[in-house]
């Protein structure tokens, strides 16, 4: 794998993460717990969607094969998506959604922070822009985690349960492969080992404020970086790609 190929694949993964999370959050439009919170969720979905478009565009530019961001989003199969498994997990109840947001955004923020100084100017510019959006997302979802964790007995129990349920997907955040390694060495990319320490420290402080317990590290699920997904992913993709699959080239 050349360094440019690795960079392209890294960009696609960033795009996949953002797109799949955008799709999940969009499912909450018209079924949010409160009107204002629903609007916040829709804003977040649009932020991720915008980021996905930028990551994909840069990847397509590097790839130079004439593919576009739409091809990436709508015409690739399940195994070609390399998003983190955490992000494709269903919304379930609001506590699950918030825990998914906190676990991912606290990682993503650190990842973007490192990418602001990376060796590819295109990626660095996107990272700088996305970083501001994610700082706000994390602020918002962290407040919710504290509100639910330190709220009523019921909300505490349910959000603690969400944390246990989703914890098995948190190991994969730091489970880098050759692509991450090339990014780190040749493009001054993120160091996943040090990010993991910062992530844990930050999360421990937040969970303590929320009176929640950090789950024991158990068996961790992984495979997203290699395109191996959980059972939920095919359904998500079918819904997301339905229109382009049924009416190829449709536009408005």
């Amino acid at each position: 794998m050349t360094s440019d190929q690795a960079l392209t694949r890294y960009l696609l993964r960033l795009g996949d993460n953002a797109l799949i999370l955008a799709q999940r959050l969009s499912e909450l439009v018209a079924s949010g717990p409160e009107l204002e919170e629903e609007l916040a969720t829709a804003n977040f979905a649009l932020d991720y969607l915008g980021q996905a478009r930028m990551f994909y565009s840069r990847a397509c530019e590097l790839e130079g094969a004439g593919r576009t961001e739409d091809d990436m989003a709508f015409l690739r199969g399940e195994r070609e998506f390399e998003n983190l498994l955490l992000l494709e997990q269903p919304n379930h109840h609001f506590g699950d959604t918030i825990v998914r947001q906190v676990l991912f955004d606290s990682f993503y923020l650190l990842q973007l922070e490192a990418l602001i100084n990376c060796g590819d100017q295109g990626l660095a510019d996107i990272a700088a822009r996305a970083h501001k959006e994610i700082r706000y997302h994390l602020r918002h979802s962290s407040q919710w985690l504290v509100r639910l964790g330190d709220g009523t007995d019921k909300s505490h129990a349910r959000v603690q349960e969400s944390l246990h349920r989703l914890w098995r997907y948190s190991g994969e955040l730091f489970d880098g492969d050759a692509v991450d390694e090339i990014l780190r060495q040749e493009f001054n990319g993120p160091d996943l080992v040090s990010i993991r320490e910062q992530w844990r420290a930050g999360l421990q402080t937040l969970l303590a404020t929320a009176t929640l317990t950090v789950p024991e590290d158990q068996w961790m699920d992984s495979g997203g970086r290699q395109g191996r997904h959980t059972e939920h992913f095919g359904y998500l993709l079918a819904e997301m790609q339905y229109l382009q699959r049924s009416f190829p080239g449709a536009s408005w």
Partner: protein
Amino acid sequence: MSQGNTMDDNEWPLYEVFIRSRAGLSHRHAGSVHAADSQMALDHARDVYTRRNEGVSIWVVKSSEIIASDPADASAFFEPAADKIYRHPTFYEIPEGVENL
């Protein structure tokens, strides 16, 4: 402006939102949001009222904390000012020869 103190126990309280559109201008009333606490009110105000770049600063205040004049008192409150045109600077003519008034 919406009624602030008629919420039942199942609903989040209402907050009034004031936005400063740019530095130097004053905050203006933009609308209201429901929120469980003041930080959530700020977040909601941000997401509802500043998504198209409308502001650089937000104030939120619980609607129930606002003391408003009673519409029934409007005639006593405001009408006496209507015929006092000498309270407007334009009532006075500037004397000849006065510069920089």
